[in-house]
């Protein structure tokens, strides 16, 4: 038990050295850290947002609105298809789909063929190999047809919307100049956005969450009026940006609409005459063509620029706009114009995202926490070390050496593998100090027991290690179960704790089984003790 082959000694010392090397970048000056990060795998530990300050935002797809939009689209498709086929019908919106009542019984079979074609399949599988499934399933009973959502179809659409949103949000965040943001998918319908150094995320969250669906639509009536007026056919009323009390009726048919998804570029600028902030935009070829056609056919009429169901402005078309570029003005502040340009460039989100959780730590609390955590760690370390020294003398020194190596390994592993150190993580490290010496306490107590039962010094040490290490393994593995569960189920700060604690348990096992034994082995070999100094 106490014998170490040469290669084993080398392996142990090498792993300890490598581990310590991993921890070194944490005490180097900033410039050195950057150089190391670029050229090697060495890096300082990543600080969590609670330590460096910043904002953590969890956004969720607004399923209700998302499915509503899908139903509206489906209703539009049904209308168009049946109208083309010259079939009389009545449409009804239900909470999870659409019902279609065909007026003439004779048309029902024909209608079925038409309506069947509108359950277009979409790919749900990974890498395009999956089974196709459609958003809606169609059921027929006589003249009545019912579209209802298929669970897998909706899931696939939500999932795709999240994927698209990730890219769009990334563009928006990068576009507004926020450094080192992290944007990740979480679960089926959520996105986690981490914004280091952002103390007031309000502006950013509003920008990220903005759907930014821009359309140019012809106006039904030239004057904005109240919503209670008789609705003109195929028109919808949106509030005006300048005065949300006022509504404007705009046309909804696709012939009277140009979508902002066809934008190629958008830039904030100032109007050369009024010096007011505006947004210049340019269509792509397809958009430019459509926009040109629409404006050419409607010279003299007003058209509404609609952003997220709000009329930003409704200028009159003075002449056909054939070049494919134009400008949006609407009493913007400079900041509003900037944000609008960014979100227009990045494109519209396929679904509305709502913030369901938002945690922000200001920079001063972050640095207070680092300071407090460091002070507490040093004091805890000193207290434990002194106690071990008093309780176990020479063996206490062995334990203290092992403890320091243990902590360095813990920090090294966390640094090099890029685990995030949070404030609860610091608590996990401090707790590791208290618990790490337990392995030594177990061994030392056992050695002492054996010695007092009349064994020789060497024999006691050997048996002590052998018996106690089995217990060390058992007790640490059970603790590890709790830590792993905590990591798996927990979120955010709790995970930070679980990681530090779990790695602490592993490094404790390592030092207990190798380093402490090695030190005692050297001591036994050099001093040939006749007594156990415990």
């Amino acid at each position, binding site marked *: 038990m106490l014998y170490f082959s040469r290669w084993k000694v080398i392996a142990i010392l090498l792993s300890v050295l490598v581990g310590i090397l991993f921890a070194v970048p944490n005490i180097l000056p900033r410039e050195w850290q950057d150089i190391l990060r670029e050229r090697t795998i060495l890096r300082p530990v990543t600080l969590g947002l609670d330590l460096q300050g910043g904002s953590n935002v969890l956004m969720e797809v607004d399923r209700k609105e998302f499915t509503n939009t899908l139903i509206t689209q489906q209703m539009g498709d049904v209308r168009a298809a049946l109208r083309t086929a010259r079939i009389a019908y009545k449409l009804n919106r239900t909470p999870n789909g659409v019902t279609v009542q065909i007026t003439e019984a004779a048309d029902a079979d024909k209608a079925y063929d038409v309506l069947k074609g509108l359950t277009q399949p979409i790919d749900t599988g990974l890498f395009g190999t999956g089974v196709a499934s459609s958003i809606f399933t169609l059921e027929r009973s006589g003249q009545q047809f019912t579209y209802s959502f298929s669970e897998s179809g909706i899931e696939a659409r939500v999932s795709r919307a999240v994927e698209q949103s990730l890219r769009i949000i990334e563009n928006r965040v990068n576009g507004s100049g926020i450094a080192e943001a992290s944007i990740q998918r979480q679960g089926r319908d959520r996105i986690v956005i981490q914004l280091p150094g952002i103390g007031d995320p309000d502006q950013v969250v509003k920008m990220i969450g903005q759907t930014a669906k821009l359309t140019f639509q012809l106006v039904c009536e030239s004057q904005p009026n109240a919503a209670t007026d008789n609705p003109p056919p195929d028109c919808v009323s949106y509030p005006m940006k300048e005065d949300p009390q006022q509504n404007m009726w705009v046309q909804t048919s696709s012939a009277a609409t140009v979508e902002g998804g066809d934008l190629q570029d958008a830039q904030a600028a100032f109007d050369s005459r009024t010096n007011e902030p505006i947004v210049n935009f340019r269509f792509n070829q397809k958009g430019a063509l459509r926009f040109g056609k629409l404006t050419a056919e409607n010279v003299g009429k007003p058209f509404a620029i609609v952003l997220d169901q709000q009329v930003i402005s409704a200028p009159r078309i003075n002449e056909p706009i054939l070049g494919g570029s134009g400008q949006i003005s609407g009493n913007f502040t400079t900041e509003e114009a900037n944000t609008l340009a960014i979100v227009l460039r990045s494109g519209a989100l396929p679904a509305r995202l709502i913030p369901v959780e938002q945690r922000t730590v200001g920079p001063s*609390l972050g640095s207070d926490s680092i300071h407090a955590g460091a002070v507490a760690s040093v004091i805890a370390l000193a207290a*434990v070390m002194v106690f071990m020294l008093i309780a176990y003398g020479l063996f206490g020194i062995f334990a203290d050496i092992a403890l320091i190596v243990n902590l360095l390994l813990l920090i090294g592993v966390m640094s090099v593998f890029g685990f995030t150190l949070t404030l609860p993580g610091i608590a996990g490290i401090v707790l590791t100090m208290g618990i790490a010496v337990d392995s030594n306490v177990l061994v030392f107590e056992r050695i002492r027991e054996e010695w007092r039962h009349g064994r020789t010094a060497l024999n006691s040490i050997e048996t002590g290690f052998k018996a106690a290490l089995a*217990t060390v393994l058992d007790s640490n593995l059970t603790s590890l179960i709790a830590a792993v569960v905590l990591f798996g189920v927990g979120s955010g700060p709790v995970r930070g704790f679980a990681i530090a604690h779990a790695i602490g348990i592993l490094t404790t096992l390592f030092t207990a089984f190798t380093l402490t034994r090695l030190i005692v082995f050297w001591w036994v070999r050099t001093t040939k003790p006749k007594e156990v100094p415990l």
Partner: protein
Amino acid sequence: MFKPIRFIPDDTKIKFMLLSRYGYFASGVACLAAILLFVFVGLNYGVDFKGGTVFVIRTEQVANLDELRGKINGLGFGDAELQEFGTGGHEVLIRLPAIEGGEDVQRVVQDKVKQVLGAGVEYLSIDVVGPKVSGELAQQSIMAVLIAIIGILIYIWFRFEWQFAIATVMSLLHDVLLTVGFFCLIGIDFNLQIIAAILTIVGYSLNDTVVVFDRIREYLRKYKQLPLADLIDVSINSVLPRTLLTAVTTLLALIALYIFGGEVLKGFTLAMIWGIFVATYSSIFSAASLLALLGVNRDAIQIQPSGSKAAAARP
């Protein structure tokens, strides 16, 4: 080299099995009290589980809690809870409940609060948790504690015998229950950090119990004729120094963390400190003696091969 100081005398011969009668009584009363506290007082759930908004602010002048409370309650978002954060009187924690109207409206709260508090206030942290997320977090936390306990049950069952597993889990539940009761009593914010603390206490308590059980198993193989009660007494006595010394080193680290680790970790550290006491108590006074009540199949222990343990037994 100076001689180490023995904090725990050698060869203690404390009759733990006799004491365990009082131990059961004390544990029973404490658990009952914890349940009553939980039912009638309840936990002070934080935003993590209840949803809502928490601000930690720093004011230029010493903060006047009543004035702040008046301003915020005037907004009509429900009753604000205010408490001093740390010492010095400049930092205040403000808690507002989740408001009606779903996920989207929660952010209105912070806009309005910022307006009403005006300039001269630094926002150290703001947490907004929607009703949906808080519900999930509560569910996940209960799951976490259950999964951990079941995982441990299975591990102990494999490594020892089922009686050991039952006794372990009983004492774990005891520890968790008393910790929850403690939090009902002192009314500190019950949040995700406390769940982390509870799981860590579970880990620690287990650690302690496993050490005692390891020793019991070893002695079961060695002293085949010794009555179980006496054997358990000897086992607890022989690991007693370790149990207490480890509790001391862990407490030293935790107390340093409590005093110097800053305001944010106070709840976590307090839970841990309490948990170490409870876990140490239960591993000495109840876990092993429960084993005596359940009885142990000594033949199974003899047959079960375990190389390292068998080798460790003295000839």
